């Protein structure tokens, strides 16, 4: 795999002509199949920003923040958001279907396997293997955070906001609603007061 991110400026112009619905579907099938557990956001960014260039990092990040702000599973919201930005209602439906259909089949198959294996020898191994993949998925999530921070956070103010959000929700366990109620106005004020450089 080549490093496609090297040399690409952070503020890249969005693609001029919107992608075909079939391309959106295939893109989100890839995302769903390559994105495990906590690593799913990493997978969305890889496909939509790095590989296909449908959105730049800032558009992706604002979609991600909006997906967290409204209720529901973040990455499913993000798929609906991106599909809708690219091709309206049809794009949203196609992105949702692509993201959920193959994993749905796999999940039901694994579930059937699990119900079948319950109480049999080998169930414990199955469970250990699963937890190993779970541990990697957490790492994929943190690794994506590092990548995003290196490329998008260049000033002290935004860095402080990033760290406060991460630590207050991730370590102190303060409910997200309170954190966002304080940090969104603070970050808006900062963005408004300090024009883009």
């Amino acid at each position, binding site marked *: 795999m080549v490093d496609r991110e090297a040399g690409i400026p952070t503020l890249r112009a969005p693609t001029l002509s919107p992608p075909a619905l079939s391309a959106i579907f295939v893109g989100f099938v890839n995302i769903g199949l390559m994105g495990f557990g906590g690593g799913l956001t*990493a997978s969305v960014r890889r496909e939509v920003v790095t590989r296909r260039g449908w959105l730049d990092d800032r558009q992706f990040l604002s979609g991600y923040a909006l997906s967290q702000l409204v209720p529901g599973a973040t990455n499913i919201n993000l798929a609906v958001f991106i599909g809708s930005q690219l091709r309206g209602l049809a794009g949203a439906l196609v992105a949702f279907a692509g993201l959920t259909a193959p994993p749905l089949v796999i999940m039901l198959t694994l579930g059937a396997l699990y119900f079948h294996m319950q109480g049999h020898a080998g169930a414990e191994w199955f469970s250990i293997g699963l937890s*190993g993949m779970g541990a*990697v998925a957490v790492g994929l999530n943190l690794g994506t955070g590092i990548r995003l921070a290196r490329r998008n956070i260049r000033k002290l103010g935004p860095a402080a906001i990033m760290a406060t959000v991460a630590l207050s929700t991730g370590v102190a366990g303060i409910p997200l609603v309170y954190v966002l109620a304080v940090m969104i106005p603070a970050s808006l004020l900062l963005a408004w007061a300090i024009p883009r450089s």
Partner: protein
Amino acid sequence: MTQILLQLASLFVVLSVLAFGGGAGVIPDMQRAVVDTNHWMTAREFLDMFAISRAAPGPGSLIVVLIGQKVAGPAGAAVSFVAMFTPSCVVIFFVSRIWHRAGQSAWREIVERAFAPIAVGLTFASGLVLLRGSEHSLASYAVTVIATVAFAFTEINPLFLLGGGAAALLALGG
């Protein structure tokens, strides 16, 4: 049967609307409803389903189809899926249309710049929450750290890391 399907539908519609900050946040509520209130399964079974949903590709919130499948077969899985995702998808769709109509306006530019550090912070936070929420052994922590560094600083394929993680824990016995 209809009774159980209605129970599943109302449970997941409510959880869908309450799931601020992502699907993982409602897992404790889900467990309470499924294990303690309705006695549909044991806590151990719920934990196993959670592990499957985390390790299987795709959105972890698809755990609802496993619960539906266990409780009421394929019809239960279908009802749970529709109930969990329809309300939240409708909301984000209308938000995204408003966003789209804002085009290149000045307020959208400011909001985008303001949201970037918050979104990056949330990415770290969700990883940290998962780390605290699961029973991590020393070996799991090591796997998580190696995966973090490898994914952040190399172009390694995530599937390779996932396979390696499963193999490492199996070799070390958990």
